[in-house]
């Protein structure tokens, strides 16, 4: 037994030393407890207390995360379980931003506020999911990867099924849960295979040697199965089936959070895995990640944009469009180091645009009760502000110049071209061409909204537009989307 005593003291010292690196996570845990506590005892007296506590705690965590920039280059903690890099700090900031926007959205969402169970629990679950995402951004160990993915997934199953107002939400949550569970089971099996082949769980050099030693197809099988779990979070092509149904069924604020928060988490994890593999020796010999991502990106872009043409339900259309954007983003991943800045910029703009889009869609649904694009007849005139900002957001999603969407796409194209110059593989060329073609196709279904709202008239009386907080927030977001299009350096100087 005594041979273990050597380790205990070391690992104890390691844990104590590691605390210094995970202040934001600790903050999240404390706020998680606070929210549950306030939900149980104080909600009778002050109805919105959980909301305010969550908001304040998120603000505190935000400042703690910004402090983390000071740690300089990467810092491995807890004997290789997690590693803290500036890249993961950026991702953490994006998660926090999407969480804050989610809370504000929930606060102004009629469906959520009228729910008899109240929204206190939702905030608690959100904080748990946020914690999981932070771990995803920092994980360096396969166990840590599995743990963080599972926390985020289980949390989001609950969020999707939170209201279960009608059959749709229940169906969405069951589909999400089953698909998610199956995928994580496959991923777990993949990890177990890797573990049994290499004997180690840490994403480092000796894992790679282990994989080199075994026959190439078995390493390939293990890694492919492992990537299935990852794909579920990012919902690229083979793993995308759940997203249209879940996004349509889930309550709009949750859909907004899923399309932005959990997708960015997926990218953060993929970035982490790629970075780990590439930095410790060349991973090409083991598994051709570039080729895989390239092909998957092309297919995802094509699928997302082409399928979206037929959609009449606005949320389903936005779901397909987010699949399309995933494909486009993977083009930035292919350019590995060069692409990081364009990846973060694109994610940030994608976050703002998507949340604004969902908020506006929710406002239209709330006031005119129409969810399908074909029922948007003539709303352009009766709800001018909403539809002008929705138009600008859609233009940004298409990627037309005055908006920041164009600058984002431009930077991704730039990084892809840069990687083409260094690697010269024609796959990247085909990716860029698909990117261009799908942008044109995307114009068509994004412009169905102004087509119905402005170009078509209707005789029925139309609702007046109510000026409320949600409209203000979406206007601010739209303004930001426009301003970052004209002065993008405000953001890019922050990322380095």
């Amino acid at each position: 037994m005594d041979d273990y005593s050597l380790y205990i003291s070391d690992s104890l010292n390691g844990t104590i030393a590691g605390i210094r690196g995970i202040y934001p996570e600790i903050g999240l845990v404390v706020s998680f407890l606070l929210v549950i506590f306030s939900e149980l005892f104080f909600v009778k007296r002050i109805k919105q207390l959980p909301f305010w506590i969550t908001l304040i705690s998120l603000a505190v965590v935000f400042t703690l995360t910004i402090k983390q920039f000071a740690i300089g280059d990467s810092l491995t903690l807890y004997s290789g379980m997690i590693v803290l890099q500036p890249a993961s700090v950026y991702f953490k900031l994006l998660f926090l931003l999407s969480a804050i926007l989610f809370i504000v959205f929930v606060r102004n969402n009629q469906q959520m506020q009228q729910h008899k169970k109240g929204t206190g629990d939702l905030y608690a679950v959100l904080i748990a999911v946020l914690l999981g995402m932070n771990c995803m951004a920092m994980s360096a160990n396969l166990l840590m990867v599995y743990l963080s993915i599972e926390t985020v997934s289980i949390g989001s199953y609950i969020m999707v099924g939170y209201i279960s107002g009608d059959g749709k939400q229940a169906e969405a949550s069951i589909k999400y849960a089953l698909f998610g569970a199956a995928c994580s089971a496959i991923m777990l099996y993949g990890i177990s295979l890797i573990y049994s082949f290499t004997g180690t769980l840490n994403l480092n050099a000796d894992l790679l040697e282990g994989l080199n030693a075994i026959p190439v197809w078995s390493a390939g099988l293990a890694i492919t199965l492992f990537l299935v779990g990852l794909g579920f979070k990012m919902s690229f092509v083979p793993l995308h089936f759940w997203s249209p149904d879940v996004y349509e069924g889930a309550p709009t604020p949750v859909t907004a959070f899923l399309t932005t928060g959990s997708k960015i988490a997926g990218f953060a994890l993929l970035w982490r895995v790629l970075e780990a593999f590439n930095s410790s020796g060349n991973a090409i010999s083991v598994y051709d990640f570039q080729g895989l991502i390239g092909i998957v990106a092309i297919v995802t872009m094509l699928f997302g944009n082409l399928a979206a043409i037929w959609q009449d339900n606005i949320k389903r259309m936005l779901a397909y469009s987010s699949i399309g954007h995933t494909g486009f983003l993977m083009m930035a991943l292919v350019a590995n180091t060069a692409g990081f800045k364009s990846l973060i910029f694109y994610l940030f703009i994608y976050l703002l645009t998507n949340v604004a889009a969902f908020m506006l869609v929710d406002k239209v649904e709330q006031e005119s009760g129409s969810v399908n694009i074909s029922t948007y007849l003539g709303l352009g005139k009766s709800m001018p502000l909403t539809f002008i900002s929705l138009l600008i957001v859609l233009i940004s999603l298409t990627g037309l110049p005055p908006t920041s969407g164009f600058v984002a796409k431009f930077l991704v194209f730039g990084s892809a071209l840069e990687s083409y110059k260094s690697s010269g593989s024609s796959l990247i060329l085909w990716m860029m061409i698909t990117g261009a073609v799908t942008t044109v196709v995307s114009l068509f279904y994004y412009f169905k909204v102004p087509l119905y709202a402005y170009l078509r008239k209707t005789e029925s009386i139309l609702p007046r537009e109510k000026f409320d907080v949600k409209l203000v927030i979406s206007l601010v977001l739209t303004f930001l989307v426009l301003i970052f299009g004209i002065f993008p350096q405000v953001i890019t100087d922050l990322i380095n």
Partner: protein
Amino acid sequence: MIPLSNFMMLSAALFVIGLYAVLVKRNVIQLLIGIEFMINAALINFVAAGKSDKNYMGGQMTALFTIVIAAASVAVALAIILNVYKYYKSIDPDKLNKLRD
């Protein structure tokens, strides 16, 4: 002593059985059971491989965590199934297709 590959064969067989159950069963709960089979297959692998990895006990630790998480996900899944039954009055996955293209 029994070589590691035998264990891997066993876990692979268990994994495939679980996968079969997931794909074919007409009952959501049986589907969950299938998923549990797949997770257990992974557990076998972990524990079997963990024997050789002396110092970090990686395998055992992962197995413990996985059991806990599997329990959590099943709990959530069952709660959701309960909710689905309230509306669809059936738990046949093929019936749950209101949300489609």
